[in-house]
């Protein structure tokens, strides 16, 4: 029972952590929430659906779909963020939301309002059993994929030039610019990585749902959002930790609460978010000491 709970929390938490990481990357540099973030999962899902007819193997299709979500993430930067970024904060929130609406309704207009099937290899939903724990293969894969991603991401931020530049930009964007770090390059890279993480997260998300529909982006966005607030809006470690905590809280509610209180789960989760912001506005892990937005 306990072991089952741990595996459930870890697999859900690893997915949440991936989503949160993608959101916090852009937030850390620009101090702006990207409301179009969830739609990257939508882009991934519909790309998979459209590629379904093609003769290519599944891994190739997934790769193309992830590339599409990277492309749309960069497009978000160019369309919704770059032109208004320095003029008005509220304007950016609205342009990013408008871009999200645009993608959702384009899916509605061009494809369909009804859910569409997404091809997934069948071995993902096979169950495996070890030490009294029964779990689908995809849960184990999502834990493994997340840890590999986190390690690669960590090395990228530590070892490469552009990773260093991104950390500098997240700490003090103005100073980094003055020292000659190309701001636009750093921001575009952040968006690209954010798109990559959303694409990988989207693959795991789709393997759970098995279908795609125009409103699919909302839940990943909310998950990423809550996880970053809990863990700390400015630190990457915080976002990952926040993802696991959110999964723990959600799972505990699922295991413990009776059915008629369970429908208020979101109310509890978001009250928790408000309380965290009141008691510890920095989140659980404090990031670098700066809050000045450019």
């Amino acid at each position, binding site marked *: 029972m306990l072991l089952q709970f741990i595996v459930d929390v870890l697999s859900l938490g690893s997915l949440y952590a991936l989503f949160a990481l993608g959101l916090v990357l852009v937030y850390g540099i620009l*101090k702006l*929430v990207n409301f179009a973030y969830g739609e990257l999962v939508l882009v991934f899902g519909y790309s998979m659906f459209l590629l379904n007819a093609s003769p290519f193997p599944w891994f190739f299709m997934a790769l193309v779909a992830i590339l599409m979500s990277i492309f749309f993430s960069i497009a978000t930067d160019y*369309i*919704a963020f770059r*032109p*208004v970024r320095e*003029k*008005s*904060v*509220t*304007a950016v*929130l*609205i*342009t990013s*939301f*408008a*871009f999200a*609406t*645009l993608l*959702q*309704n*384009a899916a*509605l*207009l061009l494809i369909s*309002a009804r859910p569409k099937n997404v091809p997934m290899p069948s071995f993902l939903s096979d169950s495996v059993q070890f030490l009294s724990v029964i779990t689908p293969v995809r849960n184990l894969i999502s834990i493994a994929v997340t840890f590999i991603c986190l390690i690669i991401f960590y090395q990228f931020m530590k070892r490469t030039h552009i990773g260093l530049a991104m950390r500098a930009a997240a700490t003090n964007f103005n100073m980094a610019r003055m020292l000659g770090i190309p701001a636009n390059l750093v921001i575009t890279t952040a968006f690209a990585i954010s798109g990559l993480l959303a694409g990988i997260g989207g693959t795991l998300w789709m393997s759970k749902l098995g279908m795609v529909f*125009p409103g699919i982006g*909302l839940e990943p966005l*909310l998950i990423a*959002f809550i996880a970053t*607030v809990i863990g700390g*809006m400015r630190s990457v470690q915080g976002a990952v930790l926040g993802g696991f905590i959110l999964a723990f809280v959600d799972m505990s509610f699922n295991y413990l609460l009776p059915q008629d209180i369970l*429908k*208020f*789960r*979101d*109310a509890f989760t*978001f*009250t928790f*978010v*408000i309380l965290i*912001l*009141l008691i510890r*506005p920095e989140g659980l892990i404090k990031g670098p000491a700066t*809050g000045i*937005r450019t």
Partner: protein
Amino acid sequence: MKFINNNNFYNILFFLGLFVAIYIINYFVGTVVFERIVTMLFIYIILTVGLQIFMGNSGILSFAHIGFMCIGAYSSGLLSIPVKMKGFVLRDLYPVLQNVSLDPIISILIGGIFTAFVAAILTLPLMRLKDAAAVITSFALLMVIHSIVVGWSAVTNGPRTFFGIPKATTLEIAIIFAFFAVTFAFIYKDSRFGLLLRATRDNDIAAESIGANIIYLRWFAIIASAFLAGIAGGLWGHFITSFSPKSFYLKETFLVISMLVIGGSFTVTGAIAGALLVYISFEILRWIEKVIKFSDYITIEFIGLTEVILAITMIIFLITKPKGLFAFHEIGDTIRKILVKKKD
């Protein structure tokens, strides 16, 4: 009057004239569809002006506004549904409320006061937050309100439709409430509280050092803003007569915020202009969508076309005019300048 200075006199007079003009146009057009559109327009004006009172003067983006509208719509509906209908709509309603059925206008007012009361309790601890933390808490507040409304079936009929509300909102009532809201917003903006709050918006540290109590200034503004949102919700509920929690969620939130930002959040004129512009273009696009749907030549359906075009226009508009149409000057300033020049 001490409060009405020269500019506000012109502002209020201008909008009184505009509202009356719209009423007269409606009288001559005389169709049901047009009257429906105009009534909705005035409800949106109340909503946007209400949001401007808090957001424009304090500079804090608030997502909770539609949540307050939701509270107003449900609470006023709950009070005015006829006793006979209540058994159908809400089977598990608490006995205290079962035999209550008030006049719609009174229940709309009570709904507004109740919303203001709820907002007062919920938001007091949140008023000290600023920047991203303030925005996110208001977003979380919207989610909490939504989740409670969906879950509390005894009072709200859960995620299902809440129906049976008597249709009471006429164009006249909507115009009167809208005029009240606009007048209040103008007077508030130039009152002592409004000026102090605007000072905290421009530089919170400097304003606090000359004695502005930021928490109470913001608190007063959000209570007033929630009251108007509650009234707008009540009017909307008594106009539509049946709705579900889905009507008060992210899509509507962003519609109202974009109305305010496109018009210009710092001015009341901007709030009204934004509501006018966005709502009218929304209706025109809806109409085109319908025409295409029922025409014999084009057989493809265009669901979502309205939203796509609106989103593209919104992005282009905000890129060219990020501070909105009326960034700093109210319409009254311009009118007075023209009039004063003529006297010279």
